[in-house]
C-alpha cells in the first residue's frame, strides 16, 4: 500500500486526468460492445482482439511513413469489412442461439485472431510514434502527453457522430428498432440480417478507431486484447445496454479507478483490480435483483 497519491495534490490531479483520458478511450470500445450486445444479444470476447488488429493497421501505416493519426480514418474502414466478414462466417450462425454458444464462438475467434496476428505481425511489442509532444500544467507538475488528449478527443468525436447517426439515419433507426424487438422489426419490413451485419461492422470499426489510438498512446502486442475485452465488459455491465451517457461515465470512472489502484496498490494490481471490481459489481447486481424479486413476491 502506498498512499503517496493522497499526499501530493498534484499527483491526485494527475491520476484523475490520466484516468479520465484513458476512460474515454475505454468507453468507446465499450460502446461498440454495448451496441452489438443490445442488438444481437452477443457478448463478443474477441472485442479486444479487434482493437489490437485496428492498432496494427495504424502501426503499419506508421512503418510505411504515413502518420499513424490517419489510422483513425483508415482502420475503421478496414475493420468495418473485417466485422462484416466475421459476421457472415461465424456470428450469423450463432446470433439467435443461446448466449453461451455466442461466448464460445467469439472466444474461438479471439484465439484465432491472436494466433493469426502473431503469425502475421510477429510477437514483438510495437508502438507508433505520433510525435505530438506534451502539455505541461501547473508549473510542470502535471504532465499530459498530447497523444492521450488526442485519443480522448477523437473518441468523443466518434461517439458523438455515432449517436447522431443512430438517431437520424435510416440504418440507425433500423438498428434501434431491431434492438427493441427483432421480431416486430422484421414484420414491419426491417431486414434484420442486414442490421445485424451492419451492427457487427460498426462495432468492429469502433474497435479499429480505438486500436489506432492505443497504438499511438500505448503499445500493442498480439496477446494484449483480453484486458480490453474485460474492461469493456465491465463498463457495459455497470452502465447497462443502450445507455450511452452511462457508458461514458462508467468508462471514465473505470479509468480513474484503475489509475488510483495503480498508485495505491501498485501497477501489478492494475488489471487485477478491474477483475475484482467486476466480481463485486456482479455480486452486488445479483443481490439487488434478488431483493427486487422478493419484493415482487
Amino acid at each position, binding site marked *: 500500500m502506498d498512499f*503517496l497519491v493522497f499526499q*501530493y495534490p*498534484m*499527483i491526485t490531479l*494527475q*491520476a484523475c486526468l*490520466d484516468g479520465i483520458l*484513458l476512460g474515454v478511450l475505454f468507453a468507446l470500445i465499450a460502446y461498440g460492445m454495448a451496441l452489438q450486445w443490445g442488438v444481437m444479444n452477443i457478448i463478443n470476447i474477441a472485442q479486444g482482439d479487434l482493437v489490437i488488429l485496428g492498432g496494427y493497421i495504424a502501426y503499419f501505416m506508421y512503418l510505411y511513413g504515413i502518420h499513424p493519426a490517419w489510422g483513425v480514418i483508415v482502420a475503421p474502414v478496414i475493420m468495418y469489412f473485417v466485422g462484416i466478414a466475421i459476421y457472415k462466417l461465424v456470428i450469423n450462425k450463432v446470433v439467435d442461439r443461446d448466449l453461451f454458444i455466442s461466448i464460445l464462438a467469439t472466444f474461438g475467434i479471439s484465439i484465432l485472431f491472436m*494466433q493469426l496476428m*502473431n*503469425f502475421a505481425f*510477429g*510477437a*514483438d*511489442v*510495437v*508502438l507508433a*510514434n505520433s510525435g505530438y509532444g*506534451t502539455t*505541461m500544467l501547473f508549473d*510542470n507538475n502535471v*504532465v499530459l*502527453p498530447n*497523444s492521450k488528449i488526442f485519443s480522448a478527443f477523437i473518441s468523443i468525436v466518434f461517439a458523438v457522430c455515432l449517436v447522431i447517426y443512430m438517431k437520424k439515419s435510416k440504418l440507425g433507426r433500423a438498428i434501434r428498432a431491431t434492438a427493441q424487438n427483432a421480431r416486430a422489426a422484421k414484420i414491419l419490413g426491417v431486414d434484420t440480417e442486414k442490421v445485424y451485419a451492419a451492427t457487427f461492422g460498426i462495432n468492429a470499426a469502433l474497435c479499429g478507431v480505438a486500436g489506432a489510438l*492505443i497504438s499511438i498512446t*500505448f*503499445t*500493442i*502486442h*498480439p*496477446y*494484449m486484447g*483480453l*484486458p480490453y475485452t474485460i474492461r469493456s465488459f465491465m463498463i457495459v455491465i455497470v452502465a447497462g445496454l443502450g445507455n450511452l451517457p452511462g457508458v461514458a461515465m462508467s468508462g471514465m470512472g473505470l479509468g480513474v479507478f484503475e*489509475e488510483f489502484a*495503480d*498508485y495505491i496498490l*501498485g*501497477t*501489478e*494490481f*492494475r*488489471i*487485477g483490480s478491474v477483475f475484482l471490481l467486476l466480481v463485486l459489481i456482479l455480486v452486488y447486481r445479483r443481490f439487488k435483483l434478488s431483493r427486487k424479486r422478493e419484493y415482487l413476491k
Partner: protein
Amino acid sequence: MKLNKIILSFVSALVILFSTSVASFAKVVGDKIILGAAISLTGKYSSNGVHTQNGYNMAVDRINSMGGVKVGGKTYKFDIIYYDDESNPKRAAQLAERLISQDGVEFMLGPYSSGLTKAIAPVTEKYGVPMVEANGASRSLFTKGYKYLFAVLAPANLYLDVAIETAVELNGGKPVRIAQAFEQDAFSQDVRLGILDAAERTGSKIIIDDKLPKELNDMAATLVKVKQMKPDVLVVSGHTKGALTAIRQIAEMKVDVPMLAMTHCDAAKLSKQHGKNSQYALCASQWHKSLTYKDDFFKDGMTYAADFEKEFGYDPPYQSAESSAALLVFKDAFERANSFDQKKVRDALAATNMQTFYGNIKFAPGGQNVDKPMVLFQVMCDASGSCENKVVAPLKWASAKLIHPIPKWSER
C-alpha cells in the same frame, strides 16, 4: 489360431516399425550427432525464439563446414531436431520428454527464456541428458543443484548491478537513491534481486520499488512518482514491452533522471526505431559485437555480426550470439570427452574453460557461466539524429565514455 497369428504379426510389425523409427533418430546416427531443442517458434516468445534458432543453425553450419566434431578418431557433424513449444512451459516439458524418450535424443540445447528452461530442466535432469542452454538467465536455475544443466550466459542478478556500482562511483562513493520497476516474471525479479544486493553493498536506498504486470502498457504512475521523488537512478526491467513503454513515457512525460538503466534495449530496437527518445539509456547486454573475444570458428564479434547479417538479413541480437556459443561449447566438450557417453560428456562440460567470440566460458558448480561479465552500453545519438549502442562498461571494452548525468529534457 488364425486370429492369434494375425495379432502376433501385427504386434511384431509395430515393434519393427517403432524400433526403426527410434533408430533413425538415435543420438548418433552414422556421422551425425543429433541434438534436440524445443524452441518458441510461435507464441509470445517467437521473435526471440527465432533469434535463438538462427544462432543455433548458424553455428551448426559453421562447425560442420569447418571439419565437424572429432570423437574417437572419427568426424561427426551436428544436426538438430526442433519442436515448437508455442511459448508454453507445459508444452516445452512435454516436448523435452518426447525428444528424449521417443526420438532418443541424448543431448539437448536450451529453449528461449528462463521460464521455459525452468520447465525443461527437471526433465533433462531426470534422464541424465546434458543440456547446454543459452537463454535462461534466472538465478533460480542455478540454485537447484542440477548436474546436467549448463548455461553459457551470466545469471540475471548480474545484469544491472554494475549500473548501481557505477552510479555510486560517479556520486563520489556516496550511496545513491534508486527507483525501480520490474515485471513479475522469473527473469526480471532476479534482476531486481541483483539490484537489492548492489544497494545493500553500497548502502544505497531504494525509494520506489514497483512491480509491473504482464499486460504492461502504461507505467505513468511509476513515472509520476519518479518525477516527484527525484531518484539518482531509475532501473526498469520488463522484457521488450517494459523497455518500449518506459522509453515512450519517459520522453512524453519529460521525466528527468540522472541515470536510466534497463534490460532488453536491443531486442526492443530502441536506438534504431526510437532514436532520440532513447538517447542516454543505459542497457545491460550479455554480448556486444565490438567485444574483442576470439575463437577459431567465428573469429570475433564483428566478423560474427557481419556473417550473421549476410545469412539472416539483420544485426544479431545477443540472443543469437549466445545460442551460437552453446554449440561451440558442445563441440569442445565432445572432443575432450572423446566419447558419446552422457556422463563423460557431462563431466567434460563441467570442466569447460574456453574462449569463444561471445566471451569466456567456465561453469560454476550450479551450471552458470562465471567467466563472462555483463556489458553495459549507452544509446548515443549524433547531431543528425542517428543513434547507436556504445559500450561504456566494463572499461576494458568501452568504446565511449559514459554520459552522466543525463541532460535534462529542457536542455536537449
